[in-house]
């Protein structure tokens, strides 16, 4: 029983972080209606940024959390503005512009291979102030980096939800997500909103990068590992839903951690996909998704 509770605690912490990796994806999808295949690469960029920042300056990972996301925001903002926007404009008449998806795939390949060229294929970890630290909670062991990752994920999700509800920019994002034509008519600059959404999504990938780096390693194709999970989580939670992404992440984290106490851990992967299929059958729009007409 101890092992199961221990596993559940770990599953919740990891799950929140999976949710965090999916948040940016769901935000970009919700607003732009584009599946961003470069999301994993953006996470990789976030992890490498955190890695180099901590490695070179030796700062505390919590401090990196204040530096990396803003940089990534700017990076994402201009990536959308310079690379993706022209394609969007060319495909103005199309409801779900397929070419944009292909462009994001291109960005994925370019970023991954750029990282491969610059940093090589090896795995890198950096010893931070909180790496390998853990504290005891009764008879359970809680890992410090994972616990802070959990807290960061919760705060990010709450902050994002608040931002979307309370601020003018947030409302513009939501309006565009609901109906981009109507939002346009109301005087919202659609492409600026896209830039912001993409920037925010990338900044969240930066947060995830800072949170993962104290206990996980980084290498150029690290994004792929998290990406597949992020896609499942986004669909599970409901496309474009912030609480959905968090809940989806928790579900995956719990399944992965708890189920592997009772069976070989290779099986949990199969179970995740099985549950995913069942949910798609029962509730095709996911936990918090609503039927969309686009």
């Amino acid at each position, binding site marked *: 029983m101890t092992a199961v509770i221990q596993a559940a605690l770990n599953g919740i912490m990891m799950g929140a972080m999976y949710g965090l990796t999916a948040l940016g994806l769901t935000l970009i999808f919700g607003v732009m209606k584009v599946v961003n295949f470069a999301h994993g690469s953006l996470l990789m960029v976030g992890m490498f940024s955190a890695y180099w920042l901590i490695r070179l300056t030796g700062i505390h990972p919590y401090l990196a959390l204040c530096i990396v996301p803003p940089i990534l925001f700017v990076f994402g903002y201009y990536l959308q503005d310079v690379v993706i926007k022209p394609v969007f404009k060319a495909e103005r008449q199309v409801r779900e512009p397929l070419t944009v998806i292909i462009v994001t795939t291109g960005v994925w390949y370019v970023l991954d291979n750029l990282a491969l060229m610059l940093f090589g294929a090896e*795995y*890198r970890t950096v010893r931070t102030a909180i790496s390998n630290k853990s504290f005891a909670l009764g008879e359970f062991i809680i890992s410090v980096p994972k616990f802070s990752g959990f807290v960061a994920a919760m705060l990010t999700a709450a902050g994002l939800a608040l931002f979307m509800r309370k601020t003018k920019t947030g409302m513009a994002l939501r309006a565009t997500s609901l109906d981009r034509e109507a939002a346009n008519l109301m005087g919202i600059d659609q492409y600026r909103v896209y830039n912001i959404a993409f920037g925010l999504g990338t900044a969240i990938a930066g947060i995830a990068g800072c949170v993962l780096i104290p206990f996980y390693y980084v290498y150029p194709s690290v994004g792929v590992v998290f990406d597949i999970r992020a896609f499942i989580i986004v669909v599970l939670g409901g496309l474009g839903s912030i609480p959905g992404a968090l809940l989806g992440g928790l579900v995956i984290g719990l399944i992965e951690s708890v189920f592997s106490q009772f069976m070989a851990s290779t099986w949990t992967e199969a179970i995740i996909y099985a549950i995913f299929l069942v949910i798609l059958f029962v509730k095709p729009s996911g936990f918090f998704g609503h039927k969309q007409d686009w």
Partner: protein
Amino acid sequence: MKKGFSGSLLAGCAGAALCAVFLAGPAFAADKTIKIGNVEPLSGPSASVGIQGKQAREMAVEEINAAGGIKSQGGAKLELVYADSKSDPTVGVTETERLINTEKVNLVTGCWNSAVTYPATQVAERYGIPFVVPVAVRDTITERGFKYVFRVAAKDSWWVRDQFRFLKDMQDETGVKLTKIAFLFENGDWGTGFAEKWREMAKKDGYEIVLDEPYPSTATDLTPVVTKLKSARPDIVMLVSNAADAILLTNTMAEMQLKPKVVLASGGGHADPKFLENTDQNALGIFDEVEWNTDVNKAGAKAANEKFKKKYGYDLTGESVDAYAAMYVIADALERAASTDPQKVRDALAATNLTAGPAMIVSYDGVQFDETGQNKNAGIVIIQVAEINGKPERVTVWPKSARRAGYTPAFPANK
């Protein structure tokens, strides 16, 4: 004016180059190259070991070419052609096909991952192109009656045999009795192959198996597996891990405060030079089985390692030494074959008896293939990660004859 000048200069250069090509034409034809195709994981989860193998090959081939190439073939130079398997069997097969059909390579080597090597060697066998396997330890690779497949490294049944010999020897030496054993292995061909043999050996030696667990190498989190391991309370933990998961597993075990009496790994990820860098103190006490260690007592080993380290910035590993030696095995066979005809090269490889030369920095005494294509002399050593001068270092501990002078293994590593 300026433009005109550079234009004419360019034309002059082009003309000179053209002349040079014409003049040098016949000389080039005599100066032939022999192409060696290499299928290695250059990206994906095993990329770091793939790149080590690549660099070891490059160093060997540079040396061979600098020493005059293959003399019986007019000083023919060796040329390495690489293909990235991404650790994926399907990619490995198509890349082997491509190397043979499009690149027209004379030999193939690779592929580190057993799961990739198994089908890739099948392709080479079908085309009748010699395939030299430096490392990929699954037994069955050389047990299919193939004529064109040769393996330099020891096969995994030998690895397992020696792991259990080590456990027994150490228990006899220290008088410590260990009974409960746990198996934790990556779920690829390599891990499952090891695990099958572990079960047999553990039964034979009277160990109680308390956990027998495969895990995916690409896992984002190994805490669940470590939690499970912790509640099984093993004395001995046997591991087969690739590079990334070896790091994650070691750090997670430290984080979860799990300290088994003996942790015995099987090379691969634990032997990766990046492993110690990424785990540091957490790796202390771990035993690892390798084919080679920098403190191995062989002529030329130290110099070769220094040269390699200077060139690429890290130490040679058992696997890169095998890749290095494989190039010399190939050069030796090509020299004796005096031809690039696949049949003749194959026959020369089968007749290999290499006991001298730069290749002999390996921990064993020679390369000689039996009728299945397996190097009969391949051997293994066991090392322990110990703190030497304040830094974790890999120290040879077994066989006792090879143990570093003055070192007493910590067995059990934890109470």
